[in-house]
């Protein structure tokens, strides 16, 4: 935890880890948070409904 520069100093900074950058990006998260249920819940679910067979 030696690195305490906060960006204004201009000192060479340690790269922000990828996972932290993801969590700092609300719009990427927004995309993921809408895509996940849209595919796994809605689209998959509606596909199943559309495949219900007619009564013999």
């Amino acid at each position, binding site marked *: 935890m030696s690195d305490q520069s906060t*960006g204004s100093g201009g000192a060479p*900074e340690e790269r922000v*880890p990828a996972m932290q950058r993801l969590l700092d990006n609300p719009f990427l998260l927004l995309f993921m948070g809408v895509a996940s249920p849209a595919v796994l819940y809605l689209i998959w679910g509606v596909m199943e409904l559309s495949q*219900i067979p*007619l009564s*013999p």
Partner: protein
Amino acid sequence: MAITPPQNRLWWKEPLSGVEITWIGVAFIWGLVMFGTMVSWHFVGKQNLSNETYRIDPNAFGEKVEAMTERYQVREEGDTGVPVVRPPPGSDIYMLSRLWEWWPVLELEKDQTYRLHLSSMDWQHGFSLQPQNINVQVHPGYDMVLTITPDKSGEYAVVCNEFCGIGHHTMVGKIHVVDKK
């Protein structure tokens, strides 16, 4: 604090305490156990839904119910004279729901298996078998098939537990389970 930005710019690199790691591990494993329980009940458990469903026109469903009723009716029951039907074990049996009744009354033999078809003629209804407390949703236009094996004899009520209008609380049907004669 939680209402100020993290003090440490690279908070991702902070180490975790042992308590946290342990709790995360416990919670994760418990999640897998619950997931596994649900999946394995399909193999070892006796109470599962069949996933067998067909699209059906409500009138077509109504005709099937009528046909069964005509064939196997044994008597009438209740203030309104609902037919009581005793179809042979192993057969396809039907119960329809409509505003505001379950029709007809079924009489089944204990420990025999039946293929019970449920559908609605109008709105959604809730099939709530009491006092067993087995509850499934009934839709118009869909024929849901449950393979049931009543294992206790007695008189069972079918209460409607999906709100279906002003007569909802008067919608009660019956299933009798009788010992083999």
